[in-house]
């Protein structure tokens, strides 16, 4: 019988980080991924906040295939024709150890898995695990076709669709066999090429600095709730949308939503002459703290997206940082030789579960129809009204803004209510 200390299913940031930490701690670990090369199945925005990577790879920023350090953030509201954008230039971010960097996952994940191998983990690519092996209620190994591999502990890092958890009844409700539309988003993304010169001139960037733009889309019809993002890489742009699946209806298709974003007058200028070189999609879990699956059980732990550890507020999506952190904490639990329930304790004591508990209410805001349907248009109309000189007597600003908001269908009470829940962002 083939047996090792730990088997990790999935070599995204969660699984690979766990593998590195375990190998550094002297454990025999096997990291398995269905992609070949590793990374070829993975896609994200993506801005990586890699604070926790320092713990396992001290100089990761110098060694990893990172694209650009984010120093400019654009946060915007798009209505059909107009845009209001908050433009933040934080050049100081470039000097800090804790800055966000843009990454392309096919390259980044391959590099991280390679680091796991260098640390001493056995890394198997191109292998799709069909099922877990469960004996007397304990997860003891994994199965592919007729081959079996056993371990003292199995770490499930399979990402957002969580097939193995669903198939084996390891969700909070064991009878659950698929996710509900309200628990998931779909991200649809393209990579566009743009020469470095044009990119740096167009976006006011230096050689290594970059921009992250995030927008609420008020220009998609039929009440579809979506946010749009675009990030600069070295000589490409990542552009995409994240759509609430429960807001899609038969009139608007997911692949059309990214076009509403790209064809918005402002965004179209940003991406002028950029040519698409890749198109893809992936789901983003948004089940919320109360619906996370059990985070550990007899013989196994769940890390990263599979556990539901993604934060989104309608504008940003952060999952890679939680993936890395939860991977490290799962590894620590094994290295310390304690009970697997210590993993949940560690999560509770770290920012991972603290964040998700704190932000429980944000989900309510991101599901709020006003955020997508009314505010982008309301904000643009209000500001336009204030700033357009029509040769009329001036009203007070607040009065004017409220009036324009009201004309866009936003009442004072809902403004106050949403303002109150927005403070959780």
């Amino acid at each position: 019988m083939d047996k090792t200390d730990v088997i990790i299913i999935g070599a995204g940031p969660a699984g690979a980080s766990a593998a590195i930490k375990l190998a550094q701690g002297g454990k025999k670990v096997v990291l398995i991924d269905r992609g070949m090369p590793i990374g070829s199945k993975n896609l994200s925005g993506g801005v990586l906040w890699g604070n926790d990577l320092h713990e396992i790879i001290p100089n990761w920023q110098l060694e990893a295939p990172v694209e650009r350090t984010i120093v400019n953030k654009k946060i915007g509201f798009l209505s059909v024709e107009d845009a209001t954008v908050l433009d933040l230039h934080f050049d100081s971010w470039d000097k800090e150890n804790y800055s966000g960097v843009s990454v392309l996952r096919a390259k980044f994940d391959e590099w991280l898995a390679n680091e796991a191998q260098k640390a001493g983990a056995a890394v198997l690519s191109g292998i799709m695990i069909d099922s877990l092996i469960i004996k007397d209620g304990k997860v003891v190994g994994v199965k592919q076709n007729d081959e079996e591999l056993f371990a003292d502990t199995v770490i499930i890092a399979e990402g957002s669709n969580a097939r193995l958890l669903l198939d084996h009844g390891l969700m909070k409700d064991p009878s659950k066999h698929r996710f509900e539309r309200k628990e998931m988003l779909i991200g649809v993304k393209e990579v566009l090429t743009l020469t470095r010169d044009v990119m740096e001139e167009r976006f006011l960037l230096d050689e290594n600095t970059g921009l992250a733009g995030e927008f609420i889309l008020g220009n998609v019809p039929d009440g579809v709730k979506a946010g749009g993002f675009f990030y600069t890489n070295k000589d490409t742009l990542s552009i995409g949308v994240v759509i609430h699946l429960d807001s899609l209806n038969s009139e608007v298709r997911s692949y059309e939503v990214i076009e509403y974003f790209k064809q918005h007058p402002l965004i179209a200028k940003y991406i002028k002459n950029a040519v698409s070189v890749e198109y893809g999609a992936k789901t983003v879990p948004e089940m919320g703290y109360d619906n996370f699956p059990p985070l550990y059980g007899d013989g196994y732990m769940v890390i990263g997206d599979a556990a539901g550890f993604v934060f989104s507020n309608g504008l940003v999506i952060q999952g890679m940082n939680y993936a890395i952190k939860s991977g490290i904490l799962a590894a620590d639990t094994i290295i310390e030789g304690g009970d697997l329930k210590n993993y949940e304790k560690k999560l509770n004591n770290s920012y991972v579960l603290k964040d998700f508990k704190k932000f429980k209410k944000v989900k309510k805001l991101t599901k709020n129809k006003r955020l997508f349907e009314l505010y982008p248009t309301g904000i643009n109309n209000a500001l336009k009204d204030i700033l357009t000189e029509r040769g009329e007597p001036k009203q007070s600003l607040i009065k004017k803004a409220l009036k324009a908001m009201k004309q866009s269908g936003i009442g004072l009470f809902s403004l106050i209510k949403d303002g109150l829940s927005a403070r959780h962002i």
Partner: protein
Amino acid sequence: MEIQRIKIDVKNKAGTTTWNTDSHDRAHITIKPDICEVCPHQLCIAGCPTECFKIYDDVMKFQFEDCTECGTCAIMCDQDSVAWYYPRGTYGIQYNQG
């Protein structure tokens, strides 16, 4: 202001992406067309980012070749028509960028 409807040919767009396609008898996702025929919403069509679901002559046709393995159809379909798996190792979509 009225929103202008956008229609595009997504198959064209997906042409930039790389796939290592498995043989037909190993399709990783299958559907039951008779369930689809009486489906109240057919939301798989709205969800799928590469238009793998399409109605021809009143019958739902599923085509697995352009699948991004995103998992959306398994969530949109609440009628138990979609049997959903990932392709076997090394097959399916191959991102060069991600």
